[in-house]
């Protein structure tokens, strides 16, 4: 039966994706960028929409929510997966509302009137069947994919508004978004970039070679020298792994020290992050916030017997509070950290915050 084939094919793909997620996060598999991750997730969700068996929007949402839960459980630190799932859920809600003919505003707003009169309007209302719902949803997901494809370029286009000539810019580790941002600015302006190498993975080295290839004056410094050179830096431009709901960051470790040093010298801290990195998570979830990898990176096994007598930590992420951040540059423009909560309400439905 073609239906069964499609189903098994689908489950296979989902399983393969989950396995990839698990492997990729531990550092053994190939390191994927967040953009790639987001795109893959969206492809998979589109496939689920196309191939899974569902009759009403509620069913589809249930299926996607289940798969989303499994995907986020496979790799909790990879938040773009969860973010894409929530985006698709919001798309479904919107398409459903449009098919029903009611405007989206009334669905969204939580007014006092609604709270008193509504009651159990949530799941029941998604039981109607619409013929074109599937096509609409898939079209909307395609639009989302186009948006994802263009994020890096959108951000890079804003580069000239923020970088003047003869600036000294500091960046930490490696971020594809920041690399594209700086390369775009380098076409027209001359400036100097200082890259902190970000031990133990030393991804800053890759960033530096990439930047110097296009002729940008680059200097690689050790992490320890960040405060020492910060007095000569005009701007700090960094990428991040996740933007949290309160406007804070979950970024590569060492970023908090950079942010503190920048605040001490009153240097603006600019974050280049596309919108799909915005996550409705808050930083007080201690168990999922920190991620550790093998301490071999910090103290290699060649150190010998001492390894059994010491504790070695190798955290991957750092929390940066929103007070230290000056500006977020995303594909929809520049925003202050205090505005992030508003953007979140445009991207995700409040009921989807907890999958």
């Amino acid at each position, binding site marked *: 039966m073609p239906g069964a084939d499609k189903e098994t094919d689908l489950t296979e793909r989902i399983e393969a994706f989950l396995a990839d997620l698990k492997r990729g996060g531990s550092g053994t598999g190939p390191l994927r960028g967040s953009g790639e991750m987001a795109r893959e997730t969206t492809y998979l969700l589109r496939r689920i929409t196309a191939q899974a068996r569902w009759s009403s929007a509620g069913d589809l949402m249930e299926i996607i929510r289940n798969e989303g839960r499994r995907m986020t459980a496979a790799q909790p630190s990879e938040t773009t997966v969860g973010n894409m799932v929530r985006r698709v859920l919001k798309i479904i809600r919107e398409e459903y509302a449009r098919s029903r003919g009611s405007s989206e505003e009334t669905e969204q707003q939580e007014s006092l009137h609604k709270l008193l009169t509504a009651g159990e309007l949530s799941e029941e209302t998604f039981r109607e069947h619409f013929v074109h719902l599937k096509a609409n949803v898939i079209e909307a997901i395609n639009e989302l994919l186009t948006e994802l494809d263009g994020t890096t370029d959108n951000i890079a286009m804003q580069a000239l508004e923020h970088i003047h000539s003869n600036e000294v810019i500091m960046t930490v580790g490696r971020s594809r978004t920041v690399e594209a941002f700086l390369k775009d600015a380098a076409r027209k302006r001359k400036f*100097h970039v200082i890259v902190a*190498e*970000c*031990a*133990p*993975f*030393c991804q800053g*080295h*890759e960033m*530096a*070679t990439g930047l*110097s*290839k296009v*002729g*940008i*004056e*680059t*200097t*690689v*410094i*050790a*992490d*320890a*020298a*960040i*405060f*020492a*050179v910060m*007095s*000569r830096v005009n701007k700090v431009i960094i990428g991040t792994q996740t933007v949290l709901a309160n406007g804070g960051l979950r970024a590569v*470790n*060492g970023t*908090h*020290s950079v942010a*503190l*040093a920048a605040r*001490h010298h009153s240097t603006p801290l600019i974050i280049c992050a596309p919108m799909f990195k915005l996550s409705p998570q808050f930083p007080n979830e201690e168990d999922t916030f*920190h991620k550790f990898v093998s301490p071999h990176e*910090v*103290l290699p096994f060649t*150190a010998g017997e*001492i390894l059994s*007598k*010491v*504790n*070695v*930590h*190798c*955290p991957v992420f*750092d*929390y940066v509070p929103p007070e230290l951040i000056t500006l977020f540059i995303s594909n929809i423009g520049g925003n202050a950290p205090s505005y992030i909560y508003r953007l979140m309400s445009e991207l995700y439905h409040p009921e989807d915050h907890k999958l």
Partner: protein
Amino acid sequence: MYHRYVVVALSRRKPNEGKELTKEEKQRLRKQKKHQKKQKERKNEKGPSETEKDKTPVSLLPPPQPVATQKAPSALPAPASAPIPVPASAPFHSSPAPSPADKPAKSKAELKAERRARQETDRAAKQPGSSSSGIKTKVPLSELNPVVKRLPEHVQVDDPAVVKRLAKKLERQQIPLRSDYGYKVSLFSHLHQYSRKAPLTQLLSIPSTVIHPSIVRLGLQYSQGIVAGSNARSVALLHAFKQVIRDYTTPPNEELSRDLVNKLKPYISFLNQCRPLSASMGNAIKYIKKEISNIPSQCKEEEAKTKLLTCIDRYIEEKIVLAAKAISKYAIEKISDGDVILVYGYSSLVNNILCEAFEKSRKFRVIVVDSRPRLEGREALRRLVQRGISCTYVLISALSYILPEVSKVFLGAHALLANGYVMSRVGTSQIALVARTYNVPVLVCCETYKFCERVQTDSFVSNELDDPDDLMVTRKGKTQLENWQDVSSLGLLNLVYDVTPPDFVDLVITDLGMIPCTSVPVVLRVKNLDQ
């Protein structure tokens, strides 16, 4: 006038009367000439004075002094006051200004001294330049003499005139000039950057006739990083100098007090070329030079040498070993049971404190923070674990993660500057900053011999650049920065030191007690007055 001078001189300086008068006179004249030269040296605040530069190098040739007798009559009025200040104050204070305060000197002599001082400062002001040891000697506040500080040459690498002058001086001392390596970041073009793979000793002939072999070995140990750390370098330096003194013999017609100092100058230049001198080494060298110059001329050679050796031993014992004990005693008061102490890199003093505290049965655990590329923290970790102290080890990028657990931060220092800034291994300021944010007290431990009269506000103007190749790392078989030299727009920066502002430091523990960071100039003043 001549007789009066001779009478004065005899009554002050010559207790033993077995010698002929004429020969004595000649010796006296020669000595006065040298005194005069040394006075000028003192005014220039460092080793070789310009007057000496014009003459032939004193260290290598036998004394050219016999011609001095012809100049004697003209030189006489000037040295009239010279015997008076010499026994009084320490010879390295470059002005004769303290002497009128110390002794009831003749007013004429005082005026002459003032005039000479003014001449010297004018001459010094006209010729800004470099000298061998890169350490400035600050004169304790003398109202009569404006302090003319000359920039050490190792922070003037971008000035071609200075570099040429240094090259000429090294050529005269027969020391090879070390060339810079690799592309230097523009912000640091005024500093040297050497490669570890090209040590200075490769350019020397073996066996070296100019430089004592223990000094050659020491220089190599410095440049390869085998001897590293402020205390270790100072102690090694002092031991090498002890060996030099043991092997030293005074050439005929020379005085030990003057010749030995001159012998040490090329050694110091050589060591400076191998690795720029640290503040502690600078202070140790100043002390040795002072002790050597203070050797009375009638002292026999063996006696003088044993005296110097005991002086050096006493210096090491007092300033380093006993100071460490005193600092440990104070610091242990600050360590309570249940503490989680954070240390950075390897500081011999902080390690000492922790080991002593552990022996006194304090219960605490230690977090060792380390940083690339030196990774000195591993050595500290090894030593602490050997004693049985429970340790945690992280890199400096994990600082924000680990700091909420920490109750105190103990840091070592390379030098304490006169404006209260702490000069230490790069990364120290970052730790102090983040600790301040988390409200964790920061305690700096530093012996007083590392206190330095320099002032500095950022880590750029005076620093040390280490070999840039150290930043390269091979991960998973790939070295990203392998061909960084080929890419013209890529530079690697390997800083060694940075300065921590005093508002990040809560307490400085020294052998004189526990003081705030801003009291450093007070300690310096007290020390100088003692001297």
